[in-house]
């Protein structure tokens, strides 16, 4: 199983304007949520706290970086770029479970203590997201091992028959 590690290579690959775009998108999404809340109420505004506005930009950037990396080695990287963005989306689906637990923890703690609500909700998000990611990896590696075993078994019986 691939271990979790840090690599600063993506930061070197990024252009300055990509960071500006992310900053602007993050700021705009936060302002938009505030505007929706003040116009339609806190309840509808709350929905937009999980708006995937930033995800659109991140997935596009990941795809672009992967395509660029492949082109440097004179290969067409479109498919590789789509796969990298798909992997990011698979991770985001698990992260969304963490986000759900963040919201549950925050709403149950905030009226008691604001600092406890923020720290507890963040901690819950981290634990649930990482646990969901780890469980999925474990499940996938078990499934792959079973499939490989099954393939070996079929190959052996085919050899015996021939």
């Amino acid at each position, binding site marked *: 199983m691939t271990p*979790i*590690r*840090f*690599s600063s290579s*993506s*930061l070197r690959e*990024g252009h300055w304007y990509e960071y500006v775009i992310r*900053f602007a*998108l*993050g*700021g*705009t999404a*936060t*302002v938009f*949520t*505030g*505007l929706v*809340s003040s116009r339609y109420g*806190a*309840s509808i505004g*709350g*929905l937009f*706290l*999980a*708006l*995937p506005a*930033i*995800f*659109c930009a991140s*997935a*596009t950037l990941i*795809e672009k970086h992967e395509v660029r990396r492949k082109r440097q080695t004179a290969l067409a990287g479109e*498919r590789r770029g*789509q*796969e990298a*963005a798909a*992997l*990011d*989306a*698979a*991770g*985001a*689906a*698990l*992260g*969304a479970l*963490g*986000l759900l637990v*963040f*919201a*549950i923890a*925050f*709403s149950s703690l*905030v*009226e008691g203590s604001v600092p406890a*609500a*923020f720290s507890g909700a963040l901690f819950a998000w981290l634990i649930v*997201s*990482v646990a969901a*990611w780890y469980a999925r990896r474990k499940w996938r590696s078990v499934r792959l091992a079973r499939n490989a075993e099954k393939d070996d078994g079929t190959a052996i019986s085919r050899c015996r028959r021939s």
Partner: protein
Amino acid sequence: MTEYVVRFLVGGVVVSAFAMLGDVVRPKSFAGLYGAAPSVALATLGIAVYHHGAGYAATQSHSMMAGAIALSVYSVLVCQLLVRTRLRAAPATLLSLVVWLIVAFGVWALAGGQA
């Protein structure tokens, strides 16, 4: 006006920080967790507590649960679109926003949401 400038700056900083964290962690599926990080939520809820109090932030985070369920559906859909239909990332993520809106408002209405 000042409130919205503060919102823009705080939102930009928090979102950029989470996005950079997502950039430096590997493998890619783990980095994807940061695509669903509570970045906009942290900035918005912080400002909500400061300006309107804990009750207002509690209401927002209550509705956020429906948004998070929709985000999970949205991410699975984007993943499937990229793998099966071979759409590029930009159209896949933008088209799926319609599904996010439908699921978010659907779950919110089913849970008895009131504006």
